[in-house]
């Protein structure tokens, strides 16, 4: 006597297996970094405008001695939407920065964001230790061959997709693959460099030992500027890769958990 109708309806799964990815403080400081770094860069550019550290001989036609002014002049000349701007040399400073001739305001805002950045860095480190996240960030020897495998994977992933060839992701036995670990591990170091070179520029008399660490005053300015460029450059692949990786990865940085459970993981109970 068997009847399909009599079989009990399969209940919808009332629970789901998730893994905890990021501590709340790590998530909070991650997102706070977006406006803070944006503010640091925008105000920093307006400070940089007052006395650029990377200069060339005066250009006979534009009168410019500053590469960032040159970039603005190029944009106004060649980018259709920007043509006709009354201040080509200030184009980048006015759009990416808070504007030219705003040194006093830019300085005050830069200190504001700088203190927020330092406080946020402490939150991040606290979160890394409270949530044990630092363990996954520490570089290991196997990162070298794995990074090469990852590079090979990224180089071939698009052609393989186009040719519809299988192109398996190299196995990852950690929270991060070797390239991610390299990138994420260098961020706090970059943050420390940004803060150290910033203080060396801000208080070169009181912190002369710090200035000497960067050889001299301009050395600290060059490091400070370069760190900004690296931060900005990090954002591009970071955002692209999160998009490529998908919704779960993005959500995990907001909610803290992920539905991606690695195979072979032993299950626990909430």
């Amino acid at each position: 006597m068997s009847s399909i109708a009599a079989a009990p309806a399969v209940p919808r799964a009332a629970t789901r297996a998730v893994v905890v990815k990021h501590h709340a403080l790590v998530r909070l400081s991650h997102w706070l970094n977006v406006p803070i770094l944006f503010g640091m860069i925008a105000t920093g550019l307006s400070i940089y405008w007052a006395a650029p550290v990377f200069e060339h001989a005066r250009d006979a036609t534009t009168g410019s001695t500053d590469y960032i002014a040159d970039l603005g002049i190029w944009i106004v000349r060649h980018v259709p939407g920007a043509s006709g701007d009354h201040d080509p040399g200030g184009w980048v400073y006015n759009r990416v920065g808070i504007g030219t001739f705003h040194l006093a305001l830019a300085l005050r805002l830069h200190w504001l964001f700088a203190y927020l950045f330092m406080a946020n860095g402490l939150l991040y480190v606290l979160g890394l230790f409270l949530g044990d996240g630092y363990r996954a960030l520490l570089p290991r020897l196997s990162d070298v061959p794995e990074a090469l495998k990852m590079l090979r994977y990224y180089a071939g992933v698009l052609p393989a997709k186009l040719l519809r060839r299988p192109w398996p992701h190299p196995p990852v036995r950690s929270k991060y693959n070797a390239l991610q670990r390299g990138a994420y591990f260098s961020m706090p170091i970059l943050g420390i460099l940004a803060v150290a070179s910033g203080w060396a520029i801000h208080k070169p008399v009181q912190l002369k030992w710090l200035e000497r660490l960067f050889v001299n005053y301009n050395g600290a300015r060059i490091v400070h500027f370069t760190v900004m460029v690296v931060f900005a450059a990090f954002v591009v692949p970071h955002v692209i890769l999160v998009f490529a990786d998908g919704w779960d990865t993005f959500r995990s940085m907001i909610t803290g958990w992920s539905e991606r459970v690695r195979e072979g993981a032993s299950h626990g109970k909430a």
Partner: protein
Amino acid sequence: MEKPEIPVEVPVSKLRARSRRDFLLFGAGTLAAAAGFWWLLPDDTRRLHLTDKMRGWLDSLEARVGATGERRERFLNGVLTFDDDVAEALYSPDRSVRTYSKSDVTPLRNNYEGKTPGPGYLPGWTLTLSGLASGKIETLTIGDLLSKFPRHDQVTRLCCVEGWSIIAWWGGLRFADLLSAYPPAPGAKWARLDSAVNLDFSGNPDPYYVSIDLPTARHPQALLATHVSGRPLPLAHGAPLRLLVPMKLGLKNIKAVTSIAYSAAEPGDYWGERGYSKYDGL
């Protein structure tokens, strides 16, 4: 060592509720950050972004929540004071400024904000001292200053608030020596240094003034400089007498000083009144 990930079974309803809460917080945070940025942006930079209509809407929204420009100023002043307090707390007690050798000297830079004053003021130039313990007002010529006080030389760096810096070989009398020869009135904590000959961009008079706390003035490396590179100061660098306080930003190093007034209360400061710090300690 990295610990293995341990999946946990969580009720779907709980996950949904948490997700909703976290995404709402995230959205609120994003809006707050965007609004905060708009509030901090100077008016002429605002005009470069968005359309007239959107700007008008944002401005009225701002006015409704009371985010006024006045509040912004007060808030930013608070930031500035905080930063100055941090600097003062960090400052080493000996406060010595690094000195360089004469081979490190770099070209000078004339950073007069307006036009450089012409030589007309030099023959009649005097230094007026007020707020003295004697109750008198003293008037000194450059000859008095050069003959009365020993000359000290130092090779130090001048850092501008704009970000550039120069190293120069300065010579002059110690501010501390002037202070002991003409002591300020008891209770004085500040000096205000004025340059009556300072000009604006079009060459009209634009007196310049700075405030200096007396401990800074008494610092052995605080000079009233009369010489640079072994020669009398040129007009571009504040002939015949300028303040040299290498522990402060360049804007405190007032050129062509014409008077010094001591006071108990903090005097005005030209750039301090124009949105910069008036502490300016490096």
